[in-house]
């Protein structure tokens, strides 16, 4: 993986530009079609198999959903929800492929203050570098989808990489390859949007009037998009209705972006400010008082 493939990186505010970005590299996406998923968990198991993860063997939690939640050793999880359609009282057993959404505007990366611990590749994939992760947990709290998880042993954050190791040799993610019904697809974002559009039209014809694409704008769109039976009710799939990168980040962007449009100087100023005031923002869990003390002044400055 070349540095030229990286378009975003956490905890950095360098003035010097990187080597030429491969701007022509197309963005990729995973498309999950909940209307075609039969909840078999092939994606979940093949994720663990490929990534050599073995979560602890848990216990029955009252549902088919096992393990109960994502963890540092479970990066993909099928969620099970029994939903009764209010109109015709029909039961629907909804399955949600739960893994990193690979947001275009990734809150985890924005929140991470450790240099290069979280990056976004030119193909849109948001990836964690566990060697650099210091376990502060900012990404965990920041993620509107509740995806990254800290490992209890090494205290580092982990999540789905969209199998960036497979992608770099031209293969599809492991979950997509194994999917038995074709509910998971992989390709360029453009292609996935096109396929989603066709499928949603077909679903409308089949009587799923509310079928639609979950590709929330609040996080800039996602590298994993989802076709839902009922786009008005993402909560029934365990998804947030209107996920946002976070209010403070949005405010920041609202202020800075116009400046950026105005000229590079303003940008440099902001970057310098950022470098001076923040630098590497190392957080120690067991010293909360120090931070209480330090950061009103930071936000004041901004």
């Amino acid at each position, binding site marked *: *993986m070349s*540095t030229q493939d*990286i*378009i*975003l*990186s*956490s905890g*950095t*505010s360098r003035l*010097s*530009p*990187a080597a030429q*970005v491969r701007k022509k590299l197309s963005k990729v996406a995973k498309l999950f079609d909940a209307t075609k998923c039969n909840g078999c968990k*092939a994606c979940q*198991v093949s994720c663990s*198999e490929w990534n050599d993860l073995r979560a602890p063997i848990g216990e029955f939690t009252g549902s088919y959903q096992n393990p109960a939640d994502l963890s540092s050793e479970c990066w993909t999880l099928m969620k099970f929800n029994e939903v009764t359609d209010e109109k015709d009282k029909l039961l629907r057993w909804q399955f949600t492929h739960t893994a990193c959404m690979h947001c275009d505007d*990734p809150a985890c*990366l*924005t929140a991470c*203050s450790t*240099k*290069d611990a*979280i*990056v976004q*590749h030119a193909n849109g994939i948001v*990836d964690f*570098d*566990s*060697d650099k992760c210091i376990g502060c947990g*900012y990404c965990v709290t*920041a993620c509107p989808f509740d995806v990254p998880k800290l490992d209890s042993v090494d205290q580092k954050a982990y999540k789905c*990489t969209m199998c*960036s*190791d497979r992608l770099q040799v031209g293969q599809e993610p492991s979950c997509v*390859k*194994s*999917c*038995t019904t074709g509910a998971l697809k992989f390709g360029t974002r453009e292609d996935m949007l096109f396929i989603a559009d066709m499928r949603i039209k077909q679903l409308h014809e089949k009587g799923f009037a509310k079928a639609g694409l979950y590709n929330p704008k609040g996080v800039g769109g996602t590298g994993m998009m989802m076709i839902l039976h009922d786009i008005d009710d993402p909560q029934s799939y365990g998804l947030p209705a209107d996920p946002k990168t*976070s*209010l*403070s*980040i949005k*405010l920041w*962007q609202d202020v*800075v*972006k116009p400046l950026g449009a105005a000229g590079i100087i303003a*940008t440099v100023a*902001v*970057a310098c400010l*950022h470098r001076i005031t*923040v630098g590497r*923002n190392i957080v120690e869990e067991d010293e*909360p008082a120090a*931070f*209480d003390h330090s*950061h*009103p002044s*930071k*936000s004041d400055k*901004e």
Partner: protein
Amino acid sequence: MNRRQFFKLCASSTATSAISALGLLPGKAFAAVREFKLLRAKETRNNCCYCSVGCGLLMYSHGSNGKNAEKSIFHIEGDADHPVNRGSLCPKGAGLVDYVNSPNRNHFPEVREPGTNEWKRISWNEAFGRIARLMKDDRDANFIEKNSDGTTVNRWLSTGMMTSSAQPNEGAYITHKFARSLGLVAIDTIARN
């Protein structure tokens, strides 16, 4: 102040997404993408051992297939050339590597002696010898050569066999020849359940 509040307050100071949107890019960022683990691994084609969809598999084992490396399988995925599964696998198939490498595999012939509470490791030779002895004693004592009408029936009912539905045809045929040559009638397969 809890962590979440803290984050909300300071997050805006680290808004690198905005920075990069303006064209400022990180200088030296090596996000360590994991090495692709299958490069040059020995690939063997097989079929899933569970259900009868018969999905094609690619099994990857350690070593170059050279004579000095002991091959052991570390990854199994679907065979994209296979016309039925086209690369996909169900969760059982996707986890096959844990069947092959299960900690509960049997490794050696063992015997549990009557009335005891433990396994004892024995050699194959001893296992074959003792089993053959037990079989012969039972067969010689209980073999039925003729029925009450005097018809030759050549059957042995006091020993039976429950056979596998996952072994290949060739093993199954050997099993059939083995059983019928001894006069076994009570052979059955898990086909029934």
